[in-house]
């Protein structure tokens, strides 16, 4: 039957190509959205893995994690929680440095916490605890700007001396800069405010239990250990995921209607053929299989086309100024599988009704149609 399916599609090349293109566009939309959202999610969640912490703590339910507002009192409370070995408070901000670096990450951290945070100074020295014009650059940022120890780096509206180059072992952290905590807080006019706490648990203590204690004791705070838990502190991410899921469902429905309509038109043209197949003994399921089989082949072609278009679309999106430096897309297996599932879903849903209609034709009536 496979060869019959191929011959049927080949006989109406233009129409087949049209359906495949429609499926391809829907798949492209879904995959592109998914890759972009995953990329943004990964970039945002990377901030959690900068330090050598067991988990992070943020303010609960803020639109985005960078708006998290934690205080010294909160930090003390976390430090006093049973099972907590240490907790480091950092302030994280972004600055639009220039067109090439619209979202440059700046981390405010006390120099005494650098080691505990997992920061290793590669050259130079750490800044002073309150030095107003000293900065340490991540090695990626230093490489990007072509700066070395002793050079000047313009940020926070002033010129700062690069006193050290550091690494955190995390590309997100290594692409930013670190400032004394009160200096970054002062520049952003949020004295005493912190964005995240990085918590280490005492040896032998179950991390989940400590997390649970903090979550339960301090309802205004939330603990985050994985990228999936990131949504607790960043509702934007939740909305983004919901938007991608909605778009996928919508794309499947719209695509299914397009596929269904086109295949229904094909059904009217091939009424005699289906009547004949029924008359010579084809079972209903076989007729449904023939029509759905045509849909599945179109879905596979459309999905391949869509995935190709998605790769091109994402490559182009990297050059959109608002996304420059933020979007680090990776096409993983799940993106491809979701694209394929979208295409197949559209085709099967779209072809099922025409297939059932074709299978329920009365042979005599169908054969008498012109």
């Amino acid at each position, binding site marked *: 039957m496979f060869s019959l399916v191929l011959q049927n599609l080949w006989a109406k090349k233009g129409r087949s190509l049209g359906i495949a293109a429609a499926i391809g566009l829907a798949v492209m939309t879904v995959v592109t959205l998914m890759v972009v959202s995953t990329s943004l999610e990964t970039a945002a969640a990377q901030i959690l893995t900068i330090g050598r912490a067991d988990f992070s703590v943020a303010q609960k339910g803020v639109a985005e994690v960078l708006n998290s507002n934690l205080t010294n009192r909160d930090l003390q409370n976390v430090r006093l929680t049973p099972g907590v070995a240490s907790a480091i408070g950092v302030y994280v901000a972004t600055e639009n440095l220039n067109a090439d670096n619209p979202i440059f990450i700046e981390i405010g951290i006390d120099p005494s916490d650098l080691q505990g945070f997992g920061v290793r100074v590669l050259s130079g020295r750490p800044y002073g605890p309150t030095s107003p014009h000293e900065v340490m650059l991540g090695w990626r940022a230093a490489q990007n700007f072509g700066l070395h120890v002793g050079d000047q780096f313009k940020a926070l509206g002033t010129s700062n001396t690069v006193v050290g180059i550091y690494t955190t072992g995390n590309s997100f952290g290594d692409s930013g800069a670190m400032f004394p905590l009160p200096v970054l807080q002062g520049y952003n006019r949020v004295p005493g405010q912190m964005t995240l706490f990085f918590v280490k648990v005492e040896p032998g203590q179950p991390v989940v239990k400590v997390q649970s204690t903090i979550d339960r004791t301090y309802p205004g705070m939330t603990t985050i250990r994985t990228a999936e838990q990131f949504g607790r502190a960043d509702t934007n991410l939740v909305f983004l995921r919901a938007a991608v899921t909605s778009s996928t469902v919508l794309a499947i429905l719209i695509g299914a209607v397009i596929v269904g309509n086109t295949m229904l038109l094909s059904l009217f043209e091939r009424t005699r053929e289906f009547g004949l197949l029924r*008359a010579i*003994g084809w079972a209903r399921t076989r007729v449904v299989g023939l029509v759905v089989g045509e849909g599945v082949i179109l879905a596979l072609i459309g999905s391949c086309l869509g995935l190709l278009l998605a790769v091109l679309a994402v490559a182009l999106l990297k050059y959109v100024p608002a996304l420059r430096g933020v979007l680090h897309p990776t096409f993983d297996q799940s993106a491809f599988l979701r694209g394929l599932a979208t295409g197949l879903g559209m085709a099967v849903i779209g072809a099922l009704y025409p297939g059932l209609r074709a299978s329920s034709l009365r042979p005599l009536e169908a054969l008498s149609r012109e």
Partner: protein
Amino acid sequence: MSDSRAALAPDTSDRAQSVPAVQVRGLTKVYDDGLIQALNGVNLDVGHGEMVSITGPSGCGKSTLLHLLAALDVPTSGSIRVQGHAVDSLDHPNRYRREVVGLVFQLHNLLPRLSLLGNVEVAMMGSRRPRRERARHALELLGEVGLGSLAHRHPTQLSGGERQRVAIARAMANDPTVLLADEPTGSLDTASVHSVLSLFVKLRAERSTTIVLVTHDSSVAEVADRRIEMLDGCVVKDNQPASVPRSGGPDRP
């Protein structure tokens, strides 16, 4: 009737051979809530390997009778048995049409995008024949109808008579014991009519296929060894040979 696959296999036992291949009793068919009476208590027996023509004017019910024999429609009342199968109460009419009877229509109804081989093979899809065996059998059948060398051509490259011969090969694809043909020569020229009729005669002779041939053309009907005439939904004349059990007979003198 059992709906198992085995139940539809031709019954070649002595007992099966002793009953007619086709047995119709009190068959009626009405349309439009009784306004149109297409068949009116038809009784008919067709013996194994017999070639029967059914003639009559348009609207006499001959095509309706054939459609009921083919399980393409259901009777209003009466019974039909073909090769022992109760056609009026089939659970799987599609399986019956695939395994017990072969159908030939006035219009060949070949699929234009398939080759001749593909058109014959398509009837075997759903049967237990392996794919390679299907192709071999289709080629063999095309050879039997004299079109073996054209197996890879498409229907549009053939004459009307050749197309109808392919349709006959398709009808024989699953080796049915009964062939039902509805006006098979209705749209053919004289030369093609002759070649198609010769094929029916050959099939009956070589395969002992029971053939029921519906036609409005009395010259075509003459090729059959038994002629049945219908009028207003009744059998009015049956030149039944003595060898066939006379359980039915004409409904109207």
